[in-house]
């Protein structure tokens, strides 16, 4: 291992790595992101390892674990280079066949992705519609590198932006480039990164600190996790460049404790970067020093807020403070502190490498570059999606996401996590960037995009987020602590059939107080889920309150389960599965649910065979009385 002393040495080692690699040699890559790991990708990897060894193919086929590719719906993903042949849902049993196909140079039809529209099998990963419509300039390298191996990152030109910054640019010039790129913070608020850096740089107080915020608490968003796990060096490189620009020599990476693999991979990456001379004393012999430390979060959503995060770094309770003075001037230990999100830092090397004017070509007037979204919920192709700012919701949900699952109809998409709002069908052609999302009452947040279909109740969603925020509110300021509690109670009343005239107005009033009076962004934006659901789905609120009807049939207190006597074949399945023995009947006897005993767990609805579909959910109407005759009438020959 050599500690690199100059940009030319970096280039030399890169050439050296490349010269040792044959681009035409087959390389089997296995996605080892958390999603694929959960499908059992590690077993697949081991099977490959074993098979390659047993067949003596070590010199002929390379094997590599990579970070998350994004198409989590179809894991375990295996991509074989140089042809980029993509196999989906690969199991350990498939391994021998994959290896012989690599040797023969033929693709295995059954493991290819089938386009649901054309029925065509697609061999090359980038031709799959899910990937084809994306622009993966930040996230794309994940699938090409082993996150635990710095050589993979170096081979793709890694750390050359850092060398360029340190040797060819002054800190002011780096700062200017980032300002001109118009990069905005990817963590939620969308504050211009260059301006934040400038404030920290211009604050005379020393030392200055720099923090990577990987406390990705926004439920439904996991892009930071995937970058941290899959390409940690890109974040480290952006971090060191940022530190150089603002004049900081000490950095912190704050990671959720729920992300053990991210912690592990960053730890390894830091060690490697130190060994190569990209971190520590006298980086690349430029005279610039910078060290970084990892801190794990304690599982508090509010710690994603900058002041709360800093309090927690100091070993205190993670409560936010009023920001009369910005953290850029007085943050960690009352020193100027710069905090950016993971994805923001991952953009920086690209901007320095290719220049602000190149970067400016992608995106909209007010929001440049791309954004990674986690497209989840009731959509066919769930996963991580990177698109240029300004892409429409429709393009994301339908072209990339493949539309709504199970042939259901689209109802709304929720963006921005608990601070965001729901966006209805009428806004599907909205080009999404920071400003457009705010206009429709939602926000970018960190990029969670939860697709909801007709079976999603908007009151339930509003209640869900309000309950979440009530639990996560630190309790320091009254508007947030009490406001959320009362909002949750009102929403619970509505969903449980105790809604009253005036509830909606009260929710709106509480919202306005919280917006004006809460201490931090958590409380100020907490009304968004409620206000946006009222704005677009007021009729649902009214149906719950006035007719005691939940159209999506979600709110338990407003629904009943009922077995259609004409459809029931007395098959005993629901009866046996009911956890509270609320179903009576028997062989040849139509089953009936005892409404008094029923806990509305929905098991009967789930287990009733789809060819009968005898269990119905009713809402806003009385449950019909049991049939007079319980005998099942069978048509001759209709039953086996």
């Amino acid at each position: 291992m050599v500690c690199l002393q100059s940009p030319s040495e970096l280039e030399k080692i890169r050439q050296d790595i490349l010269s040792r690699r044959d681009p035409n040699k087959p390389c089997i890559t296995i996605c080892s992101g958390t999603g694929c790991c959960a499908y059992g990708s590690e077993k697949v990897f081991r099977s490959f390892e074993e098979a390659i060894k047993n067949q003596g193919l070590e010199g002929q086929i390379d094997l590599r674990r990579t970070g998350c590719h994004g198409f989590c719906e179809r894991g375990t993903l295996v991509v074989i280079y140089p042809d980029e042949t993509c196999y989906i849902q690969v199991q350990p049993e498939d391994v021998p066949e994959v290896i012989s196909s690599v040797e023969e140079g033929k693709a295995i039809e059954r493991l290819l992705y089938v386009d649901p529209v054309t029925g065509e099998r697609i061999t090359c990963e980038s031709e799959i519609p899910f990937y084809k419509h994306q622009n993966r300039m930040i996230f794309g390298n994940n699938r090409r590198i082993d996150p635990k191996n710095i050589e993979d990152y170096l081979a793709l030109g890694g750390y050359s932006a850092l060398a360029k910054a340190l040797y060819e640019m002054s800190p002011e010039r780096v700062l200017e480039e980032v300002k001109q790129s118009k990069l905005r913070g990817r963590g939620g608020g969308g504050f211009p990164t260059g301006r934040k850096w400038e404030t920290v740089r211009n604050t005379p107080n020393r030392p200055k600190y720099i923090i990577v915020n990987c406390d990705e608490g926004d439920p439904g968003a996991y892009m930071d996790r995937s970058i941290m796990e899959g390409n940690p060096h890109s974040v480290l490189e952006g971090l060191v460049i940022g530190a150089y620009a603002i004049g900081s020599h000490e950095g912190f990476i704050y990671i959720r404790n729920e992300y053990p693999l991210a912690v592990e991979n960053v730890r390894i990456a830091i060690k490697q970067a130190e060994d190569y001379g990209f971190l520590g004393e006298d980086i690349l012999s430029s005279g610039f020093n910078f060290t970084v430390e990892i801190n794990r979060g304690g599982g508090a959503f509010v710690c994603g807020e900058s002041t709360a995060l800093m309090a927690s770094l100091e070993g205190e309770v993670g409560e936010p403070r009023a920001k009369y003075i910005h953290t850029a001037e007085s943050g960690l230990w009352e020193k100027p502190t710069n905090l950016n999100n993971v994805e923001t830092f991952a953009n920086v090397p690209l901007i320095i490498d290719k220049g602000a004017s190149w970067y400016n070509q992608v995106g909209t007037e007010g929001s440049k570059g791309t954004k990674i979204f986690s497209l989840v919920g009731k959509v066919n192709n769930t996963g991580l999606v990177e698109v240029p700012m300004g892409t429409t919701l429709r393009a994301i949900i339908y072209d990339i996401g493949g539309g709504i699952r199970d042939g259901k109809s689209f109802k709304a998409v929720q963006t921005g996590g608990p601070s965001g709002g729901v966006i209805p069908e009428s806004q599907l052609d909205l080009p999404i960037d920071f400003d457009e999302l705010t206009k429709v009452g939602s926000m970018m947040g960190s990029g969670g995009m939860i697709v909801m279909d007709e079976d999603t109740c908007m009151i339930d969603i509003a209640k869900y987020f309000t309950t979440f925020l009530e639990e996560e509110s630190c309790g320091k300021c009254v508007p947030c602590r009490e406001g959320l509690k009362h909002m949750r109670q009102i929403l619970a009343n509505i969903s449980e059939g105790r809604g009253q005239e005036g509830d909606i107005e009260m929710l709106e009033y509480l919202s306005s107080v919280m917006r004006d009076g809460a201490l931090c962004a958590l409380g100020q934006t907490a009304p968004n889920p409620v206000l946006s659901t009222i704005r677009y789905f007021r009729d649902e609120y009214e149906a719950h309150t006035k007719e005691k009807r939940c159209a999506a049939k979600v709110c338990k207190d407003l629904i009943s389960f009922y077995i259609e006597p004409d459809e029931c074949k007395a098959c005993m399945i629901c009866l046996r599965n009911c956890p509270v023995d609320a179903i009576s009947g028997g062989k040849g006897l139509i089953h009936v649910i005892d409404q008094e005993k029923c806990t509305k767990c929905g098991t009967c609805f789930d287990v009733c065979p789809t060819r009968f579909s005898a269990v119905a959910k009713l809402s806003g109407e009385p449950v019909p009385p049991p049939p007079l005759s319980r005998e099942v009438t069978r048509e001759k020959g209709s039953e086996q």
Partner: protein
Amino acid sequence: MDERVEAILEKYHRNRRFLVSVLQDIQGEYYYLPKEILMQTSEALDVPLSQIYGVATFFKAFSLEPRGRHLVNVCVGTACHVRGAVRVLESIERETGIKPGETDSDLKFSLEAVNCLGCCALGPVMVVDGEYHGKLSPAKAAEVLKGSE
């Protein structure tokens, strides 16, 4: 003092600013935060016990009660919620007889509802002793737990 605690404190140079990390490591070692160890920590770091208690009760990851042999984390994040996590959780509650935040009396299971495990594509998801189980139905979740000893 227990040498395990000693090692943890040394790792963080007995510096009070690492309080959260120290508590995380203690919990990693004992699976919860035993009172006597918190008292020793208070002395070693020169932080009032009340402050340690404040931090230990503020962050969700900490438990002041002993945990069961199996830690069950059920994701109730938004993506899992819209795919039916509530009913999965209910089924687990029925199976284990405990609610989130609780441990059963024979210390078999501890149940936690967590806000997002970051593998939303597989929702509903739960993690049992570090192992992920995705695309759960209420019945499948109960089945997984039935297999635990």
